[in-house]
C-alpha cells in the first residue's frame, strides 16, 4: 500500500516538474526576445537588459532592406489569401458533398503538401518554373505559397461544414429551394466561419514561409522572412529582435481573429492538429 502511494507522490511531483520546466522552456526564449528588443545597449549583452530603449525598433523602421521585404510579404500574403481562400472554399464545398470514400481520398491528396518537406516543394517549383524563364518573381512566389496554403483553406472549410448535415440542404430542397438557392442560403452561410478561419491560416502561413520563398526569391524581390533569415546569418543583432516582436504582435492579432471567427477549441478539435 505504501509503495503505491509513494509511486503516486513521485508521479505527481515529476508531472508538476515537467509542466513547470516546459512552460519556462517554451516561454523563456520568446520573453527574452521581447525584452532584448528594447535593449539600450549597442551589443548583445547578458539578460536582462540594463536599460531600455526603442533604438532597435527605430533601426528596424529605417531599414530599407527589411521594409522592402515586409511590403512584398504583405502584398503576397494578401494575394495568396484571396486566391487560396477562393479555391480552397470551393474545393472544400465540393469535397463535402462527395461520398465518404471519395471525400477521404481527395482530402488526403490535397493535404499531402503538409507532409512534404518545404525544401522539396521549393526546389521542385524552382526547377519546373526555370523551364519557363519568363515568369517574374511575384507570381512564382504566389504559386509556391498556394501549394502550402490551399490545404489549410480546404481543411478549415470542411471543419466549418462538419455538423451541417445533408438533411438541412434536403429540408431546404423540400421547402422549394433549388440547388443554387440551397447553396447560397444554407451551405455558404454555415460554412463562412470555417472559410474565414482558413483565410487566417493562409495569411499566417504565407507571412511565415521561409523555405519555399528562399528558392523563389531573387536579389530584388524577396519576402520579409527571407530578408530576416539573411540578416540572422550575416549580422546577428537586435534589429531582428524588434522585427520578431512585430511578427509576434501579428501572431497575437491572427490568433484573436481565429478565436473570434471559429473558436480555438474547434480549430484544434477537428482542425489541422489532427492527423
Amino acid at each position, binding site marked *: 500500500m505504501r509503495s*503505491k502511494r509513494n*509511486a503516486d507522490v513521485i*508521479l505527481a511531483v515529476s*508531472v508538476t516538474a*515537467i*509542466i513547470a520546466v516546459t512552460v519556462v*522552456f*517554451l516561454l*523563456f*526564449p*520568446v520573453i*527574452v526576445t521581447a525584452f532584448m528588443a528594447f535593449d539600450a545597449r549597442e551589443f548583445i549583452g*547578458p539578460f536582462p537588459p540594463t536599460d531600455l530603449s526603442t533604438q532597435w525598433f527605430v533601426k528596424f523602421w529605417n531599414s530599407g532592406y527589411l521594409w522592402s521585404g515586409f511590403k512584398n510579404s504583405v502584398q503576397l500574403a494578401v494575394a495568396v489569401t484571396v486566391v487560396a481562400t477562393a*479555391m480552397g472554399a*470551393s*474545393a472544400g464545398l*465540393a469535397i463535402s*458533398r462527395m461520398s465518404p470514400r471519395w471525400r477521404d481520398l*481527395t482530402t488526403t*491528396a490535397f493535404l499531402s503538401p503538409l*507532409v*512534404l*518537406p518545404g525544401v*522539396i516543394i521549393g*526546389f*521542385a517549383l*524552382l*526547377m*519546373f*518554373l526555370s*523551364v519557363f524563364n519568363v515568369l517574374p518573381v511575384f507570381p512564382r512566389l504566389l*504559386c509556391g505559397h498556394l*501549394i502550402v496554403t*490551399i490545404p489549410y483553406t480546404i481543411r478549415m472549410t470542411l471543419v466549418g461544414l462538419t455538423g451541417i448535415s445533408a*438533411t438541412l440542404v*434536403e429540408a431546404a430542397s423540400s421547402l422549394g429551394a433549388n*440547388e443554387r438557392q*440551397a447553396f447560397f442560403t444554407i451551405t455558404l452561410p454555415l460554412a463562412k466561419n470555417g472559410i474565414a478561419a482558413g483565410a487566417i491560416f493562409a495569411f*499566417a502561413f504565407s507571412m*511565415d514561409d*521561409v*523555405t519555399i520563398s528562399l528558392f523563389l526569391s531573387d536579389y530584388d524581390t524577396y519576402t520579409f*522572412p527571407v530578408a*530576416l*533569415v539573411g540578416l*540572422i*546569418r550575416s549580422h*546577428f543583432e537586435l534589429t531582428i*529582435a524588434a522585427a*520578431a516582436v512585430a*511578427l*509576434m504582435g501579428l*501572431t497575437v492579432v491572427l*490568433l484573436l481573429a481565429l478565436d473570434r471567427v471559429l473558436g480555438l477549441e474547434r*480549430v*484544434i*478539435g477537428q482542425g489541422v*492538429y*489532427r*492527423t
Partner: protein
Amino acid sequence: MKSGGSQVLPHLPEAAANAPIVKSAQKRIVGARVRAVKSQVLLLLPAVAVFVLFLGLPMLTVLNESFRTFEPGRIGSVEGAPLTIENYAELFLPVYMRYFSQTYFLAFCASLIAVLIAFPIAYFIARYASSTMRKAAMTLLIGLTFLSALVRVYALQLAFGSVGIFAPIMSALGVNMNGSLYINCVIVVGLLHYSIPMSILILIGAVQQLNPRLTEAAQSLGASALSSHLTVTIPLCIRGLVSAFLVSMTLGISAFIIPWILGRGRVMFISNLIYSRFSEITNYPSGAAISIVMMALSLLLIFIMSRLFTLLDRT
C-alpha cells in the same frame, strides 16, 4: 459522388418505375445529379489545376532531373543530358549517409522527448484544468505553433547561441559551445520548441476522447494512479501518441530553418543538403535525387505508421 438532394432516388419502388410520372421525375432527379456532379467538378477545378501545375508537374521534373548526368559549372542538367543512376548511387557514400542518419536520429530523439513530455501535460490540461485555465493554455499552445519559425530560431539563438545570453553561463560551466554535441542538443531543443506544443494539442484531443471513468475504475480496483495510467490510460491513448510522434517526426525530418541557423553550418539536415546543392554548387540532379529519396523515406515512415495503426486497431 452524390449530392445531398438526390438521396431519395434509390428508395423509389421498382415496380412503380414504369409509371410515366415517376419516370419523368426520375429523369429530372438524374438530371439534377448530373448537374450537381458538374458543379462539383467545376468547384474542384481551380484547386486541382494549381496542384497539378505547381506540385505534380514540378515533382515529375524533379524525378526526371534526378536521373540526368550533372556537368560541373552548369546550372542544372543540359537538355537531353544522358540518363544515369549515378546521383542515387553516390548517396550510399558514407559522407551522404551521415546526413540521413543525423537527420533521422535527431528528429527521432526530439519526437520521442516531445511525446514523453507532452503526454502528462496534455493529460493535466484535459482532465484537471479549469475552463479558464484550459482556454489560456490552448491559446498559448496555438500561439506557439503559429509563431514564426524565424522568431523561434532567433529567440533560441539569442538564448543558447554562441553569442547568446547563456554563453557566459555555459562557458563558466565548462560546456564547449562549439562542440558538435552542444550543437546537436541545441537543434533538438529547437525542434522541441515546435513539436512539444504541437504534440500537446494532438494529445489533448486523444485524452478527451478517453472515458475518465476507466482510470477511476482501475483505481477503485486497487491500481495506483501510476499503474492505472500505465495499464489503462496510455494503452488507450496509443493512437494519439503515435499521431503526435508521427507529426513531430514529419516536421523534424523536413526541418530546414532550425538546423540551418542553429547548426551553424556544422550540422546539416537533408533539407539543408538539398538547399546547398541548389545554392552553392548548383548540382540540380544530385539535389533532385536526394529529394526523391527523402520523399520515399517520408512515405515509408507514414506507411509504417499507418500499418501500426491498423495493427493497434485489431488488438
